[in-house]
């Protein structure tokens, strides 16, 4: 089967009718994220689904919907022209209408097919035609979405499915099915001939007693054996199921671990950022008042104030002294004569004075004032004046010159506020420091935010690579591990015991059977015995033939896979693919080095080429068996490849004689433009798919994908 043309109409980002010509050999569709790559793939999946009428209004092109007038209709359609013993067509569609409330109604699902018979085109139901030409079993090995879906043997039944579909194994069923089933001819024949033999034995009176004993024994043994085999089957199923789960977990384990460490880093980064941000205090306006930042320019003004107060004080005292002088107060004459105007009585204050007198030390000038000295007496007098000035003044006949003493209040204020001056003087620096501090914290927070962004990006990539598993799923997976390991080990232990039992019981059965047979020798039942014996051996021969057939198939698969693996890994290490089948009929694809040792953790690129090699091999075997070839369709299989690997990869595929369709992001450079050098080096048919500009990422109704043939 070769696809010749695909037409996508109003399907998601494919607005209007979009016919795409397909050719044999390699076809590459290049698109960036969101350009419509996966949609192309999904359009094919939608077309190929023969299991149900898959109308879904979410598939309708938003752009078409947005411009559809009320009450108008249009169609969503995907149709394919292909070659499969003649040209054929499958066409799936449904209609949609915009009703009065701007709601969309869907209807009229159609799945049509056409094939040519002679010169006539015959219509046929689409699903039937497709199932006939491209049956589900084959489709399963032809369409692969994403790199992580390439491991077809993830599913334990996958190998059985493969064997059943593509080997001859089913042909054996009529002859021999399985030990438990026994519905094949040779089972029937062996059973019937055994019955005949036993009947003949029973009719021979001579040996009747021994015959009875032995045949009883045989019956019991056969029953036991059956039970053992049933238990073996169930244990094998269990072991295989848990094995699969654990294998999935293994591949997710790395992802799970990575996710865990990313989340831990994110948490600590966010905490750090929060902390940095908590230090930032930009309430500058409030600080002007609450922290009195507004006083940052106040120094000079305060000095002015102090000077003025001082001036007032001096002037007042001068006038007072003059007054006193007029009133003839003698004790102050000396000081006036010296021209020195004394300090106000309350400067220094009383407590300081008392202290200095006590210490016999003038703390203003820093010199001793021993008792009896002039300095000491001066201080004592001053203290007395202070105390006097604090006492109520006598009522004098004349009014004093100065009724009020606001100067005192102002001086006190001057003193009190003086102590804060150093702080005030440093305000400008404090402000600058605070601003710098805030800015530094902002810078810190931004740096941390960049790290956070990187980690978030890594997390997104990780989740995208892991088959769309949600974060929760990856995290929860771990909790099940212990249980699953236990169950699996239990089942495996049981299996070992049971297999031994089976062996012993089979041997016992054979022994007793031998005894029974010997009983028959020389009797009339002998011929029956011989016949039964022959049919038993023939049955076993068919059983072995069936197993050999399966093994041959797997050997072929393995051999062909390795041929492809070598081609796809020209430059690097590749190892040897082994398809390992275990007794429970599950299989794994494993990689061994040349010494037969398992390569336990191949890198993603090697894994991808490994799986693809197996898929190509399966495809080969399919075409041999079906005498027809089928296209392989991959969505983004090379995201883990380096640029060079990609070039080699695509060129190898181009050399394989098969229609191979790959949707990819490769061949684009960092700015999302086509890398023309790479295109030149590449063989095959190449389309570019991209969103029509202009478009608004947030508005789906502006999104429209267009394809452009750029090579081939």
């Amino acid at each position, binding site marked *: 089967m070769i696809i010749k043309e695909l037409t996508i109409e109003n399907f998601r980002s494919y607005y209007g009718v979009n016919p795409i010509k397909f050719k044999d050999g390699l076809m590459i569709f290049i698109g960036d994220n969101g350009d419509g790559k996966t949609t192309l793939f999904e359009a094919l999946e939608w077309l190929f689904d023969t299991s149900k009428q898959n109308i879904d209004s979410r598939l309708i092109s938003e752009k078409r919907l947005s411009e559809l007038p009320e009450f108008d209709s249009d169609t969503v359609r995907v149709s394919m022209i292909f070659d499969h013993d003649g040209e054929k067509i499958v066409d799936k569609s449904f209609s949609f209408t915009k009703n009065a409330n701007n709601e969309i109604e869907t209807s009229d699902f159609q799945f049509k097919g056409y094939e040519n018979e002679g010169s006539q085109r015959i219509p046929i139901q689409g699903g039937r035609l497709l199932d006939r030409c491209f049956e589900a079993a084959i489709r399963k090995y032809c369409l692969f979405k994403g790199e992580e879906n390439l491991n077809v043997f993830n599913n334990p039944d996958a190998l059985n499915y493969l064997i059943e579909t593509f080997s001859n194994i089913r042909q054996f069923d009529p002859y021999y099915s399985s030990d438990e089933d026994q519905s094949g001819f040779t089972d029937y024949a062996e059973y019937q001939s055994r019955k005949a033999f036993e009947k003949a034995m029973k009719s021979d009176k001579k040996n009747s007693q021994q015959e009875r004993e032995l045949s009883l024994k045989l019956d019991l043994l056969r029953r036991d054996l059956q039970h053992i085999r049933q238990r073996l089957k169930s244990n094998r199923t269990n072991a295989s199921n848990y094995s699969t789960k654990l294998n999935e977990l293994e591949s997710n384990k790395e992802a799970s671990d990575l996710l865990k460490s990313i989340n831990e880093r994110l948490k600590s980064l966010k905490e750090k950022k929060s902390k940095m941000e908590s230090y930032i205090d930009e309430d*500058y306006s409030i600080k002007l008042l609450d922290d009195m930042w*507004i006083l940052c320019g106040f120094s000079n003004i*305060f000095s002015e*104030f102090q000077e*003025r107060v001082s001036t*007032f004080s001096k002037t007042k005292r001068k006038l007072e002294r003059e007054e006193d002088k007029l009133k003839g107060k003698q004790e102050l004459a000396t000081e006036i004569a010296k021209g020195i105007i004394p300090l106000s009585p309350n400067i220094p204050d009383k407590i300081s004075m008392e202290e200095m007198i006590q210490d016999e030390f003038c703390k203003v000038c820093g010199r001793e004032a021993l008792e009896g000295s002039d300095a000491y007496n001066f201080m004592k007098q001053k203290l007395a004046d202070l105390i006097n000035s604090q006492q109520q003044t006598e009522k004098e006949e004349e009014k004093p*010159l100065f009724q009020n003493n606001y*100067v005192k209040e102002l001086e006190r204020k001057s003193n009190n*506020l003086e102590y804060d001056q150093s702080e005030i003087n440093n305000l400008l620096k404090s*402000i600058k420091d605070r601003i710098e501090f805030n800015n530094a914290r902002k810078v810190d927070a931004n740096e941390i935010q960049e790290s956070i962004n990187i980690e978030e990006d890594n997390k997104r990539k990780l989740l995208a690579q892991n088959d769309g598993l949600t974060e929760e799923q990856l995290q929860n997976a771990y909790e099940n591990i212990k249980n699953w390991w236990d169950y699996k080990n239990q089942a495996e232990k049981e299996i070992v015991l049971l297999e031994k039992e089976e062996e012993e019981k089979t041997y016992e059965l054979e022994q007793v059977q031998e005894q029974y047979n010997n009983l028959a020798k020389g009797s009339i039942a002998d011929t029956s015995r011989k016949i039964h014996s022959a049919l038993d051996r023939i049955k076993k021969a068919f059983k072995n033939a069936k197993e050999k057939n399966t093994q041959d198939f797997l050997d072929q698969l393995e051999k062909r896979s390795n041929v492809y693996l070598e081609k796809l890994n020209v430059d690097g290490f590749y190892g040897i693919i082994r398809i390992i089948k275990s007794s429970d009929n599950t299989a794994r694809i494993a990689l061994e080095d040349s010494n037969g040792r398992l390569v336990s953790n191949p890198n993603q690129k090697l894994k991808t080429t490994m799986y693809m090699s197996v898929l190509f091999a399966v495809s080969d075997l399919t075409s041999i068996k079906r005498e027809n070839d089928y296209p392989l369709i991959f969505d983004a299989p090379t995201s883990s490849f380096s640029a060079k690997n990609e070039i080699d990869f695509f060129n190898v595929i181009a050399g394989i004689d098969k229609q191979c369709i790959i949707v990819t992001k490769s061949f684009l450079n960092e700015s999302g433009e086509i890398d023309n050098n790479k295109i030149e080096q590449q063989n095959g048919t190449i389309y570019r798919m991209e969103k029509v500009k202009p478009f608004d990422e947030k508005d789906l109704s502006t999104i429209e994908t267009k394809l452009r043939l750029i090579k081939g």
Partner: protein
Amino acid sequence: MTKENLYDVWARRNPTFEKKFKETIIKQYTEYGGGSVDSMTSKGKIFSAGYEIYIYAFFIGLYSNKRKKLAEETDKFGQPIQFWGNLDSKRFRKAYPKLRDYIFTALIAKTDDFDLIALEKGEITDRKAVDYLICTMEEYANYGFYHIEEKAKEIPNHFYKNTGFLDVILDLVQAVNEQGGEDTIENL
């Protein structure tokens, strides 16, 4: 008979401002007259009490050393100066009672008409003296308001930036320091 402190007489007063600034500046930047949901929630207010922007305006006038006589239509705040800065009950705010003292000292320094000697002699009443101080205060603040208005017209959202108010003060202080030839701080 103990006389009242000059400071206390001054602190009991309630300075006036030009009425027009109530709507344009005071209500814009403070929660003054708050009750109206509009004014509170539409734009984040910067200061809580109305007098806070008054204090700010005063310092603008003070540092610029420029005064402006008040126009005819005036208004006053609900609280006299003595209560200004008592904010301990407000969340995230601190009280700043000392600022009143400093304002007082600035007025003493800058009011030329204030003759302490005359006051001491009893030639003028404390009320009269305080009148002079209040006049200085009002005229500095008035200049400050006009300055704020101009600035807001020049750069409409200037005062909504978190450094808006601070910048104006720093610029003034720097200008003063430059004149005095001292070290300046970097521009923000």
